[in-house]
C-alpha cells in the first residue's frame, strides 16, 4: 500500500509540475514556433518580450501596481492582525470571517463593482487605484500570514517592554516589528505576488493604457497564441519561484534563530 501511494503521489507531482516546467522549457525554444522538446534553445522570445514596448509597459504597470498593493496591504494588515491577536473585543471570529470575504466573493463580481465605481470616478486605468483594489484582495493573505507570525511573539515580551517604560511606539518599533519581521517580509512578498499575478480585477480596471502582464497575456490569447506569451509566462513563473525561494529562506532562518 505505501508503495502504491508513493507511486501515485510521485505521478501526481509530475503532473502538477509538468505544465509549468513545459512552459518554461518552451519559452527557450529556438525556431520560429514553439515545439516540445525544442530543437534548439534560444532566448529570443525573452528578447522579444523585453524589446516590445507594449510588453515592457505592462511589466512596468505590473510592478508599480504590485508595489503599491504590497505596501498598502502589508501595512494595513499588520495593524489589523495585531488588533486581532492582542485586542480584546467581541465578535472576533465574525470580523475575521468578514475580512476574508474578498477572497471568497467571486472575483468577477468584485471586479465589476470596482469597475463600476472607477468608471464613475474616472479612475479606470489609474495605477494607484488598481493598486488599492489589489490591496483589498491581498489583505486576507496578509492577515492570515501575520496572524500566525504575531501569535509567535510572546505576549509577555510586550508586557515586559511596557513594564520597563517603553511607549507604545517604542514597543512596536523595537520589539514587535523586529520579532515579527520574517512574517512581515513573508506577507509583503505574497501580497506583491498576489497583485502581480492578479488578472480579473486588472482586466476590468485596465482600460487601454494600464494593462498588467496577466491582462496582456489574456488579450493576446484571445487573438492568437504567440510564442512571446511563453516567455512572459516563464517570467511570471520565475517571479513566483523567486518569491517562494526568498520566503523559504526567511522561514529557515527564523527557525534557526527563533526564541528558545
Amino acid at each position: 500500500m505505501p508503495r502504491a501511494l508513493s507511486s501515485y503521489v510521485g505521478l501526481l507531482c509530475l503532473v502538477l509540475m509538468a505544465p509549468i516546467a513545459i512552459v518554461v522549457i518552451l519559452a527557450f525554444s529556438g525556431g520560429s514556433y514553439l515545439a516540445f522538446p525544442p530543437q534548439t534553445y534560444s532566448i529570443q522570445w525573452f528578447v522579444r518580450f523585453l524589446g516590445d514596448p507594449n510588453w515592457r509597459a505592462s511589466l512596468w504597470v505590473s510592478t508599480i501596481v504590485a508595489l503599491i498593493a504590497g505596501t498598502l496591504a502589508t501595512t494595513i494588515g499588520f495593524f489589523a492582525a495585531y488588533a486581532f491577536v492582542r485586542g480584546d473585543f467581541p465578535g472576533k471570529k465574525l470580523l475575521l470571517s468578514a475580512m476574508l470575504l474578498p477572497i471568497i466573493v467571486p472575483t468577477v463580481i468584485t471586479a465589476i463593482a470596482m469597475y463600476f465605481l472607477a468608471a464613475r470616478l474616472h479612475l479606470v486605468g489609474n495605477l494607484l487605484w488598481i493598486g488599492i483594489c489589489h490591496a483589498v484582495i491581498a489583505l486576507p493573505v496578509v492577515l492570515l500570514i501575520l496572524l500566525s507570525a504575531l501569535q509567535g511573539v510572546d505576549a509577555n515580551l510586550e508586557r515586559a517592554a511596557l513594564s520597563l517604560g517603553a511607549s507604545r511606539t517604542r514597543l512596536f518599533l523595537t520589539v514587535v516589528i523586529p520579532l515579527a519581521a520574517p512574517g512581515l517580509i513573508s506577507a509583503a512578498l505574497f501580497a506583491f505576488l498576489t497583485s502581480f499575478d492578479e488578472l480579473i480585477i486588472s482586466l476590468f480596471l485596465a482600460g487601454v493604457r494600464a494593462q498588467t502582464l496577466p491582462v496582456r497575456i489574456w488579450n493576446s490569447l484571445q487573438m492568437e497564441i504567440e510564442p512571446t506569451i511563453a516567455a512572459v509566462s516563464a517570467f511570471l513563473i520565475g517571479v513566483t519561484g523567486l518569491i517562494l525561494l526568498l520566503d523559504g529562506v526567511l522561514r529557515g532562518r527564523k527557525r534557526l534563530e527563533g526564541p528558545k
Partner: protein
Amino acid sequence: MTKPPSPPTGGGALVLKDLVKTYGAERVVDHVSAAIRPGEFFSLLGPSGSGKTTTLMMIAGFATPDSGQILLDDADLTRTPPQQRGLGMVFQNYAIFPHLNVFENIAFPLRARRVPDTEIRARVNDALALVRLDRFAHRFARQLSGGQQQRVAIARAIVYQPPIVLMDEPLGALDKNLRYQMQVELKDIQQRLGMTVVYVTHDQEEAMNLSDRIAIMNHGRIEQVGAPGTIYETPTNAFVARFLGEANLIGGEIVAIETGIATLKTPDGLLLSAPAGQVRQGQRAVLFIRPEKLFCGTDGTQGIVRRRSFLGNIIRLSVEIGPDTHLTIDQANTGAPAPEPGQTVTVGWNAAHALMLAE
C-alpha cells in the same frame, strides 16, 4: 507622555484598596486590600485560581480593576497605563527579548527613559555585576541557561531603580536545587538594594523562605496576612493551616469554654482541649496542631500507631486515638528508634501549640 514618578531611595509603599476584578461570571479578585511597607518582601501565596496573579497584573497595569484603588506612595496608579507606572516586573518565562543581547536587554528601560549612552554603560555594568553575569553582556537568550536568563530579567527590572518590583512566580520554571539557590540570591539583592518586592507564588516553602510578610489568597480573597512564623503557628482558619505545610485538623463541636480554653467533642466521642481563639460554645470547629509539635511520651492521649512513613529527615506516624480520629506526628530522624505500627503510644503536646479554628 508624563515621566514615571522618580523613585525614592529604598523601596516604595504600595496600598491596595478593595480591589475587585470579575471575569464573566467569576469574581477572580474579591475585595482585596493590603498595605505593603517600603523595603518589604511581600508575597501573595495561594493555589492556582486564587487571584494572586490577577492582583499582580492589576498592580502592574495589565488588568484594570472593576473597582478599588492602587496607590504608590499616595499617588493613585489605578488608571495609569503600565508603561507610565515605573514599576519593575519579572515574569515566570523570563521574557528576555530574544533579538537583543544581554546588555541591550538590561539597557532597554534606560533607553526608554533617554538616559545618555555613557550613563547607560555604567548602570548596566553595575546591574550585571549585581547578578554576577559580568562576562555575559554580549550573549543572547538562547545561549543562556534558565537561571542565567532569570538573572538577566532581574537585572533588567531593577536597573532603573523602580520603587517596587513585581515578580510573577519567577522561579517556577527552574529545578528544585537551582530554585533554592536563586531564592537566596534574590533575597540578598532585595535586602542590599532595600527594594519593595511583591512576589506571587504557589510554593509555600518559597514564600516562607523569602518573605517578610505573606498574604494567603483563596478564591479571590485574602485569608490571612502576616509574617511567615505567625501564619504558620497561628493560622486564622483551616484553609491557611492546610496550605502551609502539614496540619492536624480534628473536627467536632465546642462543648465548653473556660478561661480561654475550649473543649471540642469529636464525632466519635473524644474530648480535646486547646486555646479557644475566636470560637464560641456550640460552634463547629477544628482543633489545629502541627505534626512536629506532637511527641510520644508519658502524658497525653492514648492511641495506636497505624502507619509509619520514612521521609528522609522525618519519620511520620499516623496514630489512631479514636475510632474515627487520627493524629499525624512528625519526628525528627535522630536515629533513635521510632514506634512501630500496632504499638500503643501516648501522644502529648504543649497546649500553647494547639488552637481552635472555626470551620
